[in-house]
C-alpha cells in the first residue's frame, strides 16, 4: 500500500437552498475550490468518486457525480457513485484512498453532495426510512430521531446521563458554528432554548437534532510523490477504515460496536491512540450521538460522555476538540456531503487555516461518519485519521 495525501479541499456553504444552487452548481463549486486548492487541472484527475444519497425528494442521485464533475472538466475517466446513507461520501473517500494506495491512480477527486430541502419534514422522514428496515421499521414509522431517542433513554437509565448534558452538546456545537463561514446555523443557542425546543422524539427536542440541509464538499487526494509536486502542505491519510453493523438478535444500544471496531482498526493502522487525537469530527446527527461516539472512540470511558461535555472537555482546545466545525448539529447535514465535509475541516485544522475556531497546534485529526440504522445498529461506519 502506498502513502496517500489530501492535497486540496473545498466546500459550499451548507444551508437551505430550495431553488438554487442545484446539485450541479453545488458540486461544481465544491470541486472547483478543491481542485484550485490542490493546484490540479482536469487533465491531472484520473478518477472520481461521489457520495450522494438522493433517496429523498427526487433530487439527482444517479449521475450526480458525473454531472457535477463534468462542470469542472473532469470527465471520461472512471467515476463511481457511492451510496451508504449518511456515510456515503466517507465511503467514497475510502474507496478513492484504496484506489490510490493500491497504485491504480495518482490523483483522484472525491465529492460529497446532497440536495434535501424543498420537501415537507414528514415526507423527508419517510424518505429517510429507506435507510432502515423498510418492511418493519419503516412501516411502523421509525424515524432516525426516534432511533436516537431510544438510545438516549437507555443511556440515561444505564449511566445517569442527563437531558442537560445532551443539550450542552447542541450549545457547544452551535457556538463552534458561529466561527465557521460554511455553517448552516452559525447562531448561539442557550441551554434553556435547547431544553425547551419542540419535542421531536422523546427525550430529544428540535435543537437536539441536526437540520435538513443542502450542500457539497470535495477533496483531491494523491500519491506521495505526486502530492509533493502539487501541494505545499499535503495532509497524510494515516488510516481509513469501514465496518458494517452486525444487527445481533440481542441488543446493546448504548454502544455502537460498529464504531468501536472501526476505531480500533484505524488506531492500529495509524499507530496512534485516542489520547493522541487533537480534534475529531464525529457524527453528531443528534446530541446523544456525540456523547455515545466520544465514548466508543475511546476519548472517554463508557458512561462518562455526558459528564465530559458538562465539564467542558470537548470544547475547542480542551482535552479533545470535538466538532470544531459545529458538527452535523450546527454546520448542517446534507447527508451525502457530510463525510467529505468532515475531511475538509480536518485538513483546514491540520494546516492551521481554521481561523477563530483553530485548534492550537493540531497535528492529528479523526473523522467518524455513520450511515443507516436498523435493529439498534449502524449500517456503515467510517473512521478516517489524518496527520500533518
Amino acid at each position, binding site marked *: 500500500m502506498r502513502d496517500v495525501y489530501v492535497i486540496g479541499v473545498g466546500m459550499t456553504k451548507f444551508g437551505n437552498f430550495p431553488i438554487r444552487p442545484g446539485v450541479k452548481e453545488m458540486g461544481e463549486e465544491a470541486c472547483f475550490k478543491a481542485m484550485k486548492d490542490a493546484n490540479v487541472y482536469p487533465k491531472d484527475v484520473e478518477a472520481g468518486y461521489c457520495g450522494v444519497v438522493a433517496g429523498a425528494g427526487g433530487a439527482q442521485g444517479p449521475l450526480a457525480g458525473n454531472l457535477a464533475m463534468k462542470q469542472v472538466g473532469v470527465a471520461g475517466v472512471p467515476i463511481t457513485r457511492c451510496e451508504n446513507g449518511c456515510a456515503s461520501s466517507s465511503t467514497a473517500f475510502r474507496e478513492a484512498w484504496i484506489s490510490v494506495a493500491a497504485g491504480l491512480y495518482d490523483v483522484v477527486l472525491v465529492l460529497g453532495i446532497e440536495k434535501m430541502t424543498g420537501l415537507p*419534514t*414528514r*415526507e423527508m*422522514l*419517510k424518505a429517510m*426510512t429507506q435507510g432502515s428496515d423498510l*418492511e*418493519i*421499521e*419503516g*412501516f*411502523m*414509522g*421509525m*424515524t432516525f*430521531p*426516534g*432511533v436516537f*431517542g*431510544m*438510545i*438516549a*433513554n*437507555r443511556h440515561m*437509565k444505564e449511566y445517569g446521563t442527563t437531558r442537560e448534558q445532551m443539550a450542552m452538546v447542541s450549545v457547544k456545537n452551535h457556538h463552534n458554528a458561529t466561527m465557521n463561514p460554511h455553517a448552516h446555523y452559525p447562531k448561539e443557542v442557550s441551554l434553556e432554548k435547547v431544553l425547551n425546543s*419542540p*419535542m*421531536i*422524539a*422523546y427525550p*430529544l427536542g428540535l435543537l437536539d437534532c441536526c437540520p435538513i440541509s443542502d450542500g457539497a464538499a470535495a477533496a483531491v487526494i494523491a500519491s506521495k510523490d505526486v502530492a509533493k509536486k502539487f501541494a505545499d502542505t499535503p495532509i497524510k491519510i494515516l488510516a481509513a477504515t469501514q465496518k458494517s453493523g452486525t444487527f445481533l*438478535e*440481542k*441488543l446493546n*444500544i448504548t454502544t455502537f460496536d460498529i464504531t468501536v471496531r472501526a476505531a480500533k482498526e484505524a488506531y492500529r493502522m495509524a499507530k496512534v491512540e485516542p489520547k493522541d487525537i487533537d480534534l475529531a469530527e464525529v457524527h453528531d446527527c443528534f446530541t446523544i450521538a456525540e456523547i455515545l461516539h466520544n465514548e466508543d472512540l475511546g476519548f472517554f470511558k463508557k458512561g462518562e460522555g455526558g459528564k465530559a461535555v458538562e465539564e467542558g472537555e470537548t470544547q475547542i482546545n480542551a482535552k479533545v476538540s470535538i466538532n470544531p466545525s459545529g458538527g452535523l448539529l450546527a454546520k448542517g447535514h446534507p447527508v451525502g456531503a457530510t463525510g467529505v465535509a468532515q475531511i475538509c475541516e480536518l485538513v483546514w485544522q491540520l494546516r492551521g487555516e481554521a481561523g477563530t475556531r483553530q485548534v492550537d497546534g493540531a497535528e492529528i485529526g479523526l473523522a467518524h461518519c455513520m450511515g443507516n440504522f436498523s*435493529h*439498534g445498529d449502524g449500517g456503515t461506519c467510517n473512521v478516517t485519521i489524518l496527520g500533518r
Partner: protein
Amino acid sequence: MGKKRIFKEGIFKEGSLESGNPILVGSKCKSCGQIYFPKKRVCPKCMTIDEMGEVELSRRGKIYSYTIAHVGPLEYAPYAFGFVELPEGISIFTHFTDCEPFEKKLKIDMEVELTSGKITTDEDGTEVIGWKFRPVKEG
C-alpha cells in the same frame, strides 16, 4: 367494519389474532437452536437452509428502550415505539399502546404483553394491522 389486512403474511399464529390473544411466530434452527424473528430460511451460524422449525414466541417481555415520535411519517402523532426483550433472548421492534400519556407511563424494564392494532391505513382506507405491546395489567 372497514377492511383490514395484516401487514406481513405468517407473522401471527393462525387464528391467534381472531382469538384476541395474538401469538407471534418465529424460526428456530433445528441444529443450533437460535431463534429468529421474523421467520427466515437460512441459519448463518450453521449455514443451513430450510432447516428451521417454527416457534411460538413468548407473549410477555420487558421494554429495553422506547421513544415517543412527535413528528414522523405515519398519519398520526404522537406514537410510541421501541424494543421489547423476550425471554428467548431476542428483541422485537414494536409500537406501544394502552399506555397514554406515553411520557408518564412508559418505563424501561416495564413488563409488557403482546397485542395487535392498526399501524397505518392504506390509500383505499384498508387498516393495516401489526403487532403492538401494552403494559401488563396488574392482578
